[in-house]
């Protein structure tokens, strides 16, 4: 947006569709793929902004779970922003007929894996605990107090133990649970065969189960 004194000039392709919240008006029933096709075809930033609105929480959550509490030196919002930028820059590589959601998550996961590799290489891990996940469970009024505490402890354990999983297993597990992706969608996001996705999921759960049981 350009500002001249009190006059604001909005670039036409924004002004046409933008609502005050920065999303596309009347896009509720439009599929992700249709919006992304508009982004690709017309370079429509408003359509892309609508996709960002739909997915920003989930992508940030995905990044935060991938990097977990051991890498809190990294701001998950920055990585999520890079993932969206990557998606925009690589929009011409999006295959017609493909699903947008696993494609976007695949980009985000690859960003995280790259970041984990760099951090592992530089050994700059800052071990600061993140209580966000357990806080929300404590706040839940559905459970009895004792059960809530146990559950909170289990989630906190998961948050800690998942850092011991290799990045590829962690990626499959996070994708499975962060937005309930199917085997096929995970396979598409990670560019893996479905059989490998199943094996990775099994190994990730088995490893977590073993570690959690060892602690008790």
């Amino acid at each position, binding site marked *: 947006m350009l500002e001249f004194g009190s006059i604001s000039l909005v670039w036409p392709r924004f002004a046409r569709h933008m609502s005050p919240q*920065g999303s596309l008006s009347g896009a509720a029933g439009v599929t992700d793929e249709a919006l992304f096709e508009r982004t690709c075809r017309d370079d429509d930033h408003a359509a892309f902004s609508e996709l960002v609105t739909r997915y920003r929480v989930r992508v940030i959550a995905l990044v935060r779970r991938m990097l977990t509490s051991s890498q809190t030196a990294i701001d998950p919002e920055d990585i999520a922003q890079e993932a969206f930028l990557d998606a925009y820059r690589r929009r011409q590589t999006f295959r017609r007929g493909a699903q947008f959601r696993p494609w976007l998550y695949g980009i985000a996961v690859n960003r995280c894996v790259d970041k984990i590799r760099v951090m592992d290489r530089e050994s700059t891990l800052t071990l600061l605990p993140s209580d966000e996940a357990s806080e929300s469970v404590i706040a839940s009024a559905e459970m009895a107090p004792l059960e809530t505490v146990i559950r909170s402890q289990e989630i906190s354990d998961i948050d800690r133990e998942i850092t011991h999983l290799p990045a590829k297993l962690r990626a499959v597990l996070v994708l499975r649970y962060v937005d309930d992706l199917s085997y096929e969608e995970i396979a598409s996001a990670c560019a893996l065969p479905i059989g490998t996705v199943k094996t990775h999921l099994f190994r990730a759960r088995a490893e977590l189960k073993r570690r959690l049981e060892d602690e008790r």
Partner: protein
Amino acid sequence: MNGECVRAQTLIQLLLDGRIDASRRQALDRHVATCPACAAAMDGYHRVSSSASEWARPRASEDPGAGFNDRLLKMLEAEAPPSPQFWARRSWRRSGLSILIAAVMAAAGGIWLANYTNVWQSISADVDPSDWMRSLAQIPDAMHEIAISAWSALDGLLSSVATVSAPNWVTEAGAAAIVVNAIFLIQAISNRRRQSA
């Protein structure tokens, strides 16, 4: 752990992911009812899966709000627009012109080379290359021998190409250029239609 237990482990994973059908579910339940180890494993996997699901679930408190979009859009605005793809760059006018030029060149090349054979043969009959080279350049004997050899080689090569296949390959190259440019033209027209749609 026997074969039934190994199978049960696989079925437990399918159960956790909601991918188990009714008959397999019954088989799993029957096995778990008689196998305490698998029952414990199933209970353990259920707890892990439930906790992992709760741990991974995105929370409203993680939403950075519209400011996230604003920052992102500013970054996008700052980026240079991407160059159009190769196909999109081919306008239908340019493709049509390319076809026309290729057709003219192919025809002209074919006609010229069809006559070239006769022209070349008449030159070769009138001129003795040995005398011509010696009188023109006054070059030393060693160089003279090399020049004569080169002349003979060139003469043989051009004669064979011209008489056997030269008109054909030039015409074929022209035809190939027409086909390639026709593909460009079709692509350019379909791009134009898609954009107008």
